[in-house]
């Protein structure tokens, strides 16, 4: 972004970035909150949380469809943007990909701003 090729490529390419991981352990739903851009996850109780540890983790096709449905509804309600269902490691809500781990925790170069301890 220092030099910014970002604009034209925004949403569709970003989802492509989140291509699935074959060894996926599960799925969680995430996006950025519209009003402040903060990273949020769908929680087990149906609310949205900034804490990835509270994320609702699904391992079945039906479960994944439910995550998508929730994202869709929240997007349509103008609550979040850049919605995506992402992979987690087996038996934890820790995202599988480094990109998503960094989204969940914060920049690795600023531990002082971290939202949680790194895994």
């Amino acid at each position, binding site marked *: *972004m*220092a*030099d*910014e*090729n*970002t*604009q*034209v*490529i*925004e*949403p569709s*390419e*970003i989802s492509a*970035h989140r291509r699935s*991981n074959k060894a996926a352990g599960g799925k969680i739903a995430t996006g*950025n909150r*519209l*009003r*402040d*851009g*903060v*990273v949020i996850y769908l929680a087990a109780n149906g609310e949205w949380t900034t804490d990835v540890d509270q994320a609702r983790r699904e391992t079945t096709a039906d479960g994944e469809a439910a995550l998508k449905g929730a994202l869709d509804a929240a*997007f349509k*309600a*103008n609550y979040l*943007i*850049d919605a995506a269902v992402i992979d987690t490691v087996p038996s934890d809500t820790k995202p*599988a*990909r*480094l*990109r998503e781990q*960094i*989204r969940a925790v*914060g*920049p*690795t*170069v*600023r531990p002082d*701003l971290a939202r949680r301890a790194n895994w």
Partner: protein
Amino acid sequence: MYIYDKFDQTIVRERVAEFRGQVQRRLAGELSEDQFRPLRLMNGLYLQLHAYMLRVAIPYGTMSSAQLKKLAYIAQTYDRGYGHFTTRQNIQYNWIKLEQVPDLLNDLAEVQLHGIQTSGNCIRNVTADQFSGVAGDEIEDPRIVSEAVRQWSTFHPEFSFLPRKFKIAVNGAARDRAAIQFHDIGIQVVRGPEGDVGYAIYAGGGMGRTPVVAPLIRAFLPKAELLSYLEAILRVYNRHGRRDNIYKARIKILVREIGAEEFTRQVEAEWALLRNEGVNLPEAEMSRIQKFFAPPPYEKIAAPVVAFEQARASNPAFARWVETNVHTHKVPGYGVVTISLKPVGGIPGDATAEQMSQIADLAEKYSFAEVRVTHVQNLVLPNVKQADLFAVWQQLGKIGFADANLGLIGDIIACPGLDYCALANARSIPVAQQISERFRTPERMKEIGPLQIKISGCINACGHHHAGHIGILGVERAGEELYQITLGGAGDETASIGELLGPGFKGDQVVDAVEKIVNTYIELRQPGEEFLAAYRRVGKAPFKERLYASA
């Protein structure tokens, strides 16, 4: 410095008001994200990994201390206390809340700053040599034409929806400090056959996935005709540039596809129609602009400046900093100070609100209230009296920015990479930090000599890796960060694109690889031969051999 007239000021104020309304409608759900996204991008507001990111334009890298003060205030008030200076001479804030953006922009507008022309397929914020107006080797201050280009390009109706973004850079000295040959248009101030000042025009350069060094398309353009010539280039591009494929939409692809000669022919033909159409800036307007860049009231200073020479003689650390970070000023008794935003192990280009505000104070006290941003992610105090250098150096030490590493291995460009950027494949900053730690001692840096390392976190090349003497590009392989190394790139007047050495390295192997390259260079260099010159003499073979020998 240029001060907005009432037209500019009104434009910016009206834009803030307009965007305030758009944000309100978006938050109320009256605008969809698809409708809103282009509107926010037109104001420099992106969505990145952690939040919205706001990019603020600093036209041709020149700002007043009051503007820097305001940037510090913005970091403190609306962000998490820091900002990031980029290779586009901009500043980016990483933690912006959409709902606060209208107020933020309103505050910025008070000092004539904004995010216009920092995004979208328009003519972007123009960049220039950071030593404009003070360099000893300058033919003419490039900010005069930069400002003319800024006024001409802002909201230019014909060029608001180009096939792709468009970047113009201007250089006024013999030494190219603005990397003009890597821009869509590069303008080099030159002297014509009769000694008159004019411009050499390069077109079709760029980085990204298809790096191209721009060909020279006109060796001499009379000064008065610049805007009509630029307009001719833009017209040809706007007409023939590809809109069907985002990867082929930049002007560099057009110039390459039809050839520089044919492209030039078309531009000249278009220009013949345009040059008398009143596009060029009237003489009166040009001299009005020029007045804003009149030299500040320099003092007549007799050489040598005794206190300065004494400080240099008695303090080796200060002497080292003067040697690396202070350039000769065109006025005797003054120096051009580059503040390295690259402390050992730091984040290249990052500055806290406190640091920005202190630097603004220094500028006010010692540099006629002026600051510059460089495309190497450093800041410049352009007008410091030699007698004040020691005090400035000491103050900079207090805020952690007194590193004597300008142009050396510690002066690394790194894009935000995967730590912040939504398009990244790999992290850039940690790699820069590791390299800077490894080569941290002044002795080692001096031994190595001038060496530019540039790091990008993806092929978009915001970290200018193609132009790095050592370029590092982060990619993703099988879910892991991997780094490709190129050698021999240069962004100066001898512009060249770095060549790929071989297979990539894992994150924890990059520093060792860089060290091997450096050691190879030290062993094979001839007396006084800098890294780039040595590489150009011997080519990549010896480096490749050493790097992949035992692998």
